[in-house]
């Protein structure tokens, strides 16, 4: 794996998410509706996607800004989508929760928890069919990202059963951030309540299930590389439970008109009063952690790392500038795309 490239992608995602968050203060009213940030999950996202090759595909959830950035989408078009502008990657029809960029392998998301899992499974079926029909397309794989909460949906269980039964080329990456909005995983997951990892669920569907430190990009990549290789070889799916900590609240506040939208503090603090947990999570922030690993390992020096950060800052400033300068959609376009 290109570890410096991995660090660069992690920094780009972090800076993008910081700019989304700052938009609420710097440009009040520009973002309307819901946003959900991926800060804290960068190592999991980038380490996973680094295991892919062109032709592979990704589906995700409404917490979806990071994946298309790692896949090569234009951050300006992504920011413009979040701002609801006509230059957005989906023309302003989708917004933060519904980014899609099939040209870069990003098949989209579901705002309904867990419901992109069956679709990703269907994309994997299509990949399996293409593999059988064309030597040029052999072994395409789908990565399906979702959260720990989604594993309580029937769609998750039905899909894993089918994928294992049909030996589909898919890897299910459960980003377990321990919270479903304001409910802790021990309160809503039988495995967690019993002190077992959520990857235990894989056993029910006779597929490998592993639990990993999703804050370590190298561990994530090694795990995904193995799971992706297994999928490419026609040996079927894997469930990867990637332990992450989201560093922001579930989403921005949904305030009444006149009150600026903003990001509240993390639920560990606001709901559970557990400042120590949140401070510990901040100390384990995967982005500086990976920088430290690369610098102490001699892979990257501090100046080069700073240059990567400066590059990302400039790039995402450009994305914000592009989005702000972009026009709103023409109201007459509201009825487009109802039917293909």
């Amino acid at each position, binding site marked *: 794996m290109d570890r410096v490239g991995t660090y660069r992608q992690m920094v780009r995602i972090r800076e993008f998410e910081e700019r989304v968050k700052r938009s609420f203060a710097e440009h009040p009213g520009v973002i309307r509706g819901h946003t959900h940030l991926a800060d804290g999950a960068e190592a999991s996202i980038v380490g996973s996607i680094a295991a892919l090759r062109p032709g592979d595909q990704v589906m995700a959830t409404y917490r979806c800004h990071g994946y298309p950035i790692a896949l090569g989408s234009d951050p300006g078009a992504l920011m413009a989508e979040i701002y609801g502008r006509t230059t957005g990657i989906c023309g302003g*029809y989708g917004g933060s929760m519904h980014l899609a960029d099939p040209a870069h392998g990003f098949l989209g998301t579901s705002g*309904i928890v867990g*419901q*992109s899992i069956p679709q990703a499974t*269907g994309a994997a079926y299509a990949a399996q069919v293409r593999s059988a029909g064309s030597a040029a397309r052999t072994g395409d794989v789908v990565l399906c990202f979702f959260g720990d909460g989604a594993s309580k949906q029937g769609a998750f269980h039905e899909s894993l059963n089918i994928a294992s039964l049909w030996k589909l080329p898919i890897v299910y990456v459960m980003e377990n951030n321990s919270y479903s909005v304001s409910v802790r995983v021990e309160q809503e997951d039988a495995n967690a309540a019993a002190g077992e990892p959520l990857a235990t669920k894989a056993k029910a569907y006779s597929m490998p299930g592993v639990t990993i430190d999703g804050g370590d990009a190298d561990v994530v990549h090694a795990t995904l590389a193995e799971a992706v290789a297994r999928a490419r070889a026609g040996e079927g799916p894997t469930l990867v439970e990637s332990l992450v900590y989201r560093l922001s609240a579930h989403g921005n506040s949904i305030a009444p008109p006149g009150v600026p939208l903003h990001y509240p503090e993390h639920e560990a603090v606001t709901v559970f009063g557990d400042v120590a947990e949140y401070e510990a999570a901040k100390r384990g922030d995967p982005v500086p952690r990976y920088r430290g690993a690369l610098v102490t390992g001699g892979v990257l020096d501090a100046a080069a790392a700073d240059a990567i950060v400066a590059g990302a800052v400039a790039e995402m400033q450009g994305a914000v500038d592009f989005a702000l300068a972009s026009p709103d959609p023409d109201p007459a376009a509201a009825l487009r*795309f109802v*039917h293909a």
Partner: protein
Amino acid sequence: MTDLTYAKAISTTIAQAMRADPDVFVLGEDVSAGGPFTTTAGLVEEFGAGRVIDTPISEAAICGVAVGAAQSGLRPVLEIMYVDFITLALDQLVNQAAKAHFMSGGQLSVPMVLRTQGGAGQRAGAQHSQSLEAWLTHVPGLTVVMPSGAADAAGLLASAIASPGPVVVVENKVLYFRREPVPDPVEPIPLGRAAVRRAGRDVTVVALSRMVGEALTAAEELATEGVEVEVIDPRTLVPLDLDTIVGSVRRTNRLVVAHEAVLHGGFGAEVAAAVQHAAFDDLDAPVERVGAPFQPIPLSPPLEDAYLPGAAGIRDAVLATLGRVPTSTL
């Protein structure tokens, strides 16, 4: 033309599409055995288990698999065995299939067909007999088709499979073994074009699915009493061929809408509202609706027979528009 049952017309059409396009495949519960009504009989023998897939009993997942496969370039023909089971797949249909093209700003498309069947009359009880098409017509992005005979079942399905977006075809279990001539090879019938099943000058009856036959029965009986009924089969509920319906009402000045679904919140209300808006001055009587009472479907034959709307109700409704029976009998 070949004389085919409605069920055989469906399997014939799917086979024709699968021969023409390797991306077309069938999935659903028990489809390789033909399903409970033989609508997919013979397909696995010709196309193999790789393209005629028996799925687990997982409606949410198989509908989602169809959506995902369609987004990735295949053309799934999904069977949900009874429309009553569509509740389990509604998120995939309503929130995913119907919205993917729109939410992605046109980047994604979902060329899938969801075949299912509804209708009472087979003593199947409250969970295997419903007519739920009105729910589906309420969702922008879905095309909704209800064939009333074998030739339409074939031609409309051919168009549905060729459609670039999601199409739900609601078949009717009571019609499956009725025969009529079907073009060989099957020719696509355009979606969104109504058929005038019987010309008449006095009253327009718009009837859906099985009720088309009931309307024709009522029309023959009324003809002996000097009332000429025009029977229109919309064939596609979304998009609806309102022009044909309104054109007829402008001549007859009277409208009855008949479906097997419960009247309350039924598609007949949409037709009635659209017609009164388009042709208010042409109407000489209130629009009459025929449908089932607002209750679950009972199993016992005398109870189900009492529940089921049919030709007698349509006849009364036609006469009501002519002022010959009071509307309160409905």
